[in-house]
């Protein structure tokens, strides 16, 4: 099956975009709680536009930031994305250039950022970040390990979200898979079983012609 076909099948048989969004939201909510942080975000890397997009935000900026974009290779999230390495940066507010850029793009100037790339299979799908963790909690190698585990979850969640989006666009497209997926979708919504009987008859007919 092509990517689009499997995405369409996943979209019909599995969850929808809202479910995967809720999964990403719960990951940033838990990450924020565990690290006692002011905020946590998941960014999706939009390869075509070469930008990072806020997909889920917990805490500061949660109401307004989802959907906001910025260039992929700048900022601390960009660090993590381009190097494929997690990192922790403190004392950010001492850096006037960073503060200005950040304030302009998000309205919030953190003092510290933890960022981890979201790697799934061979691809870098995005970045998980944790802003202004609690000051009384040091961030050493054990905490980076923990964040890495969260990153694996977030990467899988992001992959599912991308599949759901591809499924939706496949449903709106042309060709046999799109048609079958649309029919399956309609059957899901149907009250009676006439549609299903018709489809079964079609299947018998096609099998008899083999």
């Amino acid at each position, binding site marked *: 099956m092509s990517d689009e076909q499997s995405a369409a099948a996943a979209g019909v048989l599995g969850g929808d975009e809202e479910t995967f969004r809720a999964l990403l939201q719960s990951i940033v909510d838990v990450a924020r709680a565990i690290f006692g942080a002011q905020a946590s975000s998941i960014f999706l890397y939009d390869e075509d536009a070469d930008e990072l997009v806020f997909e889920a935000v917990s805490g500061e900026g949660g109401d307004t930031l989802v959907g906001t974009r910025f260039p992929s*290779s700048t900022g601390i999230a*960009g660090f993590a994305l381009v190097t494929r*390495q997690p990192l922790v940066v403190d004392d950010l507010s001492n850096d006037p250039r960073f503060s200005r850029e950040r304030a302009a793009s998000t309205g919030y100037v953190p003092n510290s950022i933890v960022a981890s790339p979201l*790697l799934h*299979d061979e691809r870098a799908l995005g970045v998980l970040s944790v802003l202004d963790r609690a000051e009384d909690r040091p961030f050493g190698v054990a905490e980076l390990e923990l964040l890495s585990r969260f990153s694996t979850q977030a990467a899988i969640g992001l992959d599912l979200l991308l599949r759901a989006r591809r499924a939706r666009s496949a449903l709106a497209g042309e060709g046999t898979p799109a048609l079958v997926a649309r029919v399956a979708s309609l059957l899901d919504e149907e009250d009676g079983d006439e549609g299903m009987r018709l489809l079964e008859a079609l299947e018998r007919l096609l099998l008899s012609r083999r």
Partner: protein
Amino acid sequence: MSTRPVPAWSLPPGDAPAVEAPGPWREALTRQWAIGDSRGAVDVCIVDSGIEAGHPLVGPVASARAVARGEDGSVQIVEDELGDVVGHGTACAGIVRSLAPDCRLHSVRVLGAGNTGAGDLILAGLRHAIDSGHRVINLSLSTTKRRFAEELHELADDAYFKGTVIVASAHNLPVDSYPWRFSSVISVGSHERPDPLTWYANPDPPVELFARGVDVDVAWLGGGTLRCTGNSFAAPHVAGISALVLAKHPELTPYQVKTVLRLTATNTEGTP
């Protein structure tokens, strides 16, 4: 998704288990012999996001090149006029300089300015760095694309046979990434101690060494500093220490340098 076990990415708090070294080697091969009063006067190349030349913690940059994609999609090596737009390469360069004050720093920019780590650009940058004959190359990055792994492997072997030490930061996410896993490079994870000259040999590879990588004050864009944590900052510590070794013992091959680093590691029994 990889089925291989996830290696130790970094050293948990506390010292690493002791690594045994043959008695006669231990006595002959001391840190004093290895790095003594060396100032690391060799060529060290940072293959990364560029270097901010003239940063107080970095000093002069002997050469700066960038890997660029031409209009026809071909990959070219050009003079780098941007410096560092991300900050990562400058941070690595500052760490190397702090350990090897007399090293000649070179930059090959393969990241940033719209490049989010395309494998072919990293390969081209690394190839250029190896062909330039630098003694040490720092790679605080990796690629997750398997189709580049074979060529990267060949490049890492080329460097090894030509006498260039490649120091690469290790990864701990459950995906394979390259080139740090290759035995022809030196792979580095982080420990939590604040001493830049504390390094540990890992008795459980593929990560071979642990170096300082937690709460490191690094050079930052605009002449400033930031406190950073990550394996990206552990690798340049070993690159700097390798420069010290090679400046004092220019005849050593990469495998000898690796052996020296292992035998003089903080957790190798009898390390003076």
